[in-house]
């Protein structure tokens, strides 16, 4: 491999370079295996986009996510954005980390699982829209699995090191990190650390957004042991420590969020790579505490700690034959979540309640998917998953709270859920057409079931759960067409979803809100149906030898049977990226445009959002010396310093204004 090639490799996807090209070992070959099957194009498409955007050295996992078609972010601050797939969020989608189930501890969704991941540790994003995401858990909205890098074996006699630092001017953010991989014949070790600290950011027009700073330290530790040529044991540990995280769109900030994520994995990869058996046991725990001490508007101080513990395992077997791919998976987990609130009035006894009564959720699921290449042009795929869930409140205090409402939450809630999808793909010349139908169900979340006076800043209502909610179910249809030419490709996906038992917040009359200044109390109810439809297109053009255009458009439209629009539906959005690449120099200009959103849900307290467009520019230089390489990148986001907000931004808080960032990377390969 020439020096030139190596540098390009580093620029585009240094990680991919490590895992797939440089380290020709058995562990990582598994990731490239699926490319053999022609019909599993979905994730390759997303991975290509993922690698493209990651290579521009974006600061956070969310920055990469929001550029991927079909993914949007609900934003409550500069940190902890909640990913949505098409418009599905929270319990409608399934976010997993290395295949592990994890529940954010915060009842206000301040800590989606994605916040516990550093972008420098990402190895792969697996996004599956709709019920096609059913392999990892019952869902109607899809799945997002974040694969992290693990210790890997290679033939090098020195460790591979990456060091990076990045500085952002809009919020005086510092971002420093390193990773190190080293191995012997039997052992491989990967360590990484990342520290980031940011002050309040400035929105367009030099407006400081108070309470938007944050601080975080993330440590990863991965050890792999090679039992023999085909068997590995891998131990992974992530420790993430966030502190003083501001959420300008919410009435409170976060004092700390601590996560510990442990897993032990056994992986068998047959010598011809066509059979993979992976079994993982895991435990993760999150402790989270909200903080109102920095808010002047606080009338009465309160403590709001919350906890989440999950234990689980999965075992997945993948076998690839000449024309068939078969995946079978069994998984189970037990999750405990709890949130409390203590308020401190003057000269009175503190007031206490469990906003999420301590509860256990048990789940066991059995899933299979099957792909068959009928011939070189046609293939068919099928996936099915069956889940059994049961949940109950275990804390006596919480049980009594709910008994006050005549509901026995100590009694098990049991649900059997099915998620399945079927697709057929046919290729004709440069056209590939794919038809998918699916059916899925999703469990009501703990908040929706047993949340107790949880304040929702969006509509100003306190929410109490409904223990008798039925699972949401959806019938989905999707058609996708891809045109693949040598110089360009163009993909269009149309989807239509019919959702039954749609879970929706209803006002409870005569209930008084717990939150001072709250507008009232709502609970959740199943409404008969909802429709969601939309499209996504993605295109790549190689304009000249050195210029690549990549763009995508996404649009969703949701209607409920009560005549209202679905809430939190993003408007039409374009992301256009033009990249010039010459040897080790890269220049990129990005244009993001969103139309106005007038289809709003008034019940949810949404307001109309006007259209906006912003421009970003990025430039990167690289230099390689022997096995080392350096990269300098400079980015300017929101070049014109526009004051704007995206439709999914809560509380009318505007986005970052012009933000100049400078980053430096060093690699020892």
């Amino acid at each position, binding site marked *: 491999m020439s020096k030139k090639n190596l540098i390009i490799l580093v620029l585009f996807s240094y990680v991919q370079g490590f895992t797939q090209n440089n380290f020709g070992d058995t562990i990582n070959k598994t990731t490239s295996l699926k490319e053999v099957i022609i019909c599993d194009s979905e994730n390759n498409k997303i991975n290509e986009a993922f690698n493209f955007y990651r290579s521009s050295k974006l600061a956070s996992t969310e920055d990469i996510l929001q550029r991927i078609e079909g993914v949007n972010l609900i934003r409550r601050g500069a940190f902890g954005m909640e990913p949505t797939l098409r418009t599905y969020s929270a319990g409608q989608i399934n976010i997993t980390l290395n295949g592990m189930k994890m529940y954010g501890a915060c009842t206000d969704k301040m800590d989606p699982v994605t916040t516990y991941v550093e972008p420098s540790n990402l190895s792969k994003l697996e996004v599956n829209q709709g019920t096609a995401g059913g392999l990892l858990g019952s869902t109607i909205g899809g799945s997002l699995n974040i694969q992290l890098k693990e210790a890997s074996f290679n033939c090098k006699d020195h460790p591979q090191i990456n060091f990076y630092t990045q500085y952002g001017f809009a919020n005086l953010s510092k971002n420093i990190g390193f990773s190190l991989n080293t191995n012997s014949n039997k052992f491989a070790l990967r360590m990484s650390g990342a520290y980031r600290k940011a002050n309040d950011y400035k929105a367009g027009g030099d407006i400081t957004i108070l309470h938007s700073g944050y601080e975080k330290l993330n440590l990863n530790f991965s050890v792999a042991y090679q039992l023999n040529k085909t068997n590995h044991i891998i131990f992974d540990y992530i420790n993430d420590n966030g502190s003083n995280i501001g959420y300008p769109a919410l009435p409170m900030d976060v004092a700390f969020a601590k996560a510990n994520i442990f897993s032990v994995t056994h992986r068998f990869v047959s010598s011809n790579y066509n059979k993979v058996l992976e079994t993982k046991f895991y435990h993760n725990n999150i402790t989270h505490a909200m903080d109102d001490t920095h808010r002047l508007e606080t009338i009465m101080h309160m403590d709001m700690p919350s906890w989440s513990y999950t234990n689980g395992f999965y075992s997945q077997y993948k076998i690839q034959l000449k024309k068939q791919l078969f995946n079978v998976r069994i998984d189970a987990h037990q999750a405990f979540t709890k949130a409390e609130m203590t308020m401190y009035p*003057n000269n009175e006894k503190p*007031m206490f309640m469990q906003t999420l009564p301590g509860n256990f959720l048990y789940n066991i699921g059995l899933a299979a998917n099957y792909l068959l290449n009928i011939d070189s042009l046609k293939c068919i795929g099928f996936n099915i998953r069956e889940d059994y869930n049961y949940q109950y409140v275990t804390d006596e205090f919480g049980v009594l709270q709910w008994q*006050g409402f005549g509901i026995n939450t100590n009694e098990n809630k049991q649900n059997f859920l099915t998620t399945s999808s079927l697709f057929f793909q046919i290729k004709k010349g440069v056209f590939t057409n794919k038809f998918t139908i699916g059916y899925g169900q999703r469990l009501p979340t703990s908040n929706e079931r047993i949340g107790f006076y949880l304040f929702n800043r969006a509509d100003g209502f306190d929410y109490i759960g409904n223990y008798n909610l039925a699972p949401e179910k959806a019938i989905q249809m999707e058609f996708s067409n891809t045109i693949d030419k040598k110089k360009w490709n163009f993909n269009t996906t149309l989807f239509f979803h019919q959702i039954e038992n749609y879970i929706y917040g209803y006002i409870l009359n005569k209930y*008084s*809100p717990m939150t001072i200044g709250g507008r009232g109390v709502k609970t959740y109810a199943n409404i008969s149906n909802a429709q969601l439809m939309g499209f996504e297109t993605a295109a790549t053009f190689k304009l000249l030898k050195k210029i690549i255009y990549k763009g995508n458009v996404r649009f969703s439209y949701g209607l409920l049977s009560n005549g209202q629009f679905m809430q939190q539906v993003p408007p039409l959005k374009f992301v256009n990226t033009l990249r010039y690449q010459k040897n080790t120099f890269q220049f990129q200009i990005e244009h993001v445009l969103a139309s106005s959103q007038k289809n709003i849900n008034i019940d949810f307290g949404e307001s109309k959002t006007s259209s906006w467009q912003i421009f970003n520019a990025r430039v990167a230089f690289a230099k390689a010396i022997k096995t080392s390489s350096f990269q300098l990148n400079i980015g300017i986001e929101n070049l014109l310093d526009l004051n704007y907000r995206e439709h999914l931004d809560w509380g009318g808080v505007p986005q970052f204004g012009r933000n100049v960032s400078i980053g430096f990377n060093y690699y020892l390969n």
Partner: protein
Amino acid sequence: MKFKTILAITFATILLATNACKKEETTTVTPTPVIVDQIPSTYKLMGETYILGAAAKAKVYAEKDFFVGYNKIFVAMFDSVSNTRLTDGHFDVIPMMDMGMMKHSAPVEITEESIPSDKFWKAAIVFIMPSSAGKWTLNMAFHNHKTDKEGEGELEVNVINPTTSVMKSFIASDSTKLFVTLIQPTTPKIGLNNFEISIHKKDMMDFPAVNDYTVEIEPTMPSMGHGSPNNVNPVFTSMGHYVGKVNFTMTGLWNVKLTLKKNGVTIDNKQSFDITL
């Protein structure tokens, strides 16, 4: 022969079985008489006095020190000579407040007046003021069925003001002097609690129970201004008692506001009880 053995075995088994049953019966029966003269550990002795003329001595127990509010009393009677526990008799009590210039009584309920099941005569007294205002005495009358003698006894007691008021005396809009007393919850907990009050009025020297009101309650947390759903308004049960449910959705200080109606007309809505949990 074979048949006989089977018969014998069968008989033996039946005999054994019946014996076994008898044994069990005797063991289960024996414990009950043991508790006869015991005083439950939750009872606190408030004082004792001779019932002169009835050849009896009364020991008065309560669950805690007497306070302004609803107090249950438990009275054990003893033969004044043999000091054995009396089980048969008629009991009555009238609380009296001597304020020097005037004397008055207080609402009282006699809940077990003759042959009490556990040998305690029971009553409840709503003390309407503390002993700091004068001298409270319990004037007891007893008809001892064992000796067929009658007599009276007087016991001075001390009544304190509780830290949180559980008895409200006021004049309603129809000029009735009312005494509304909180009976339950005594140990409030999160969630649904029984909510029980008694209502008495002053009628010359008597304090009769009021049985024909309708009562509405509204709990709120004063420091936050919110209420709670799913409360059940108290309804009349007996002897001036009204029982409902109150739902405390969180711990802390709650204020339960009362609305009293007579024949559908609100006669008072100014009274409330503070309850802290």
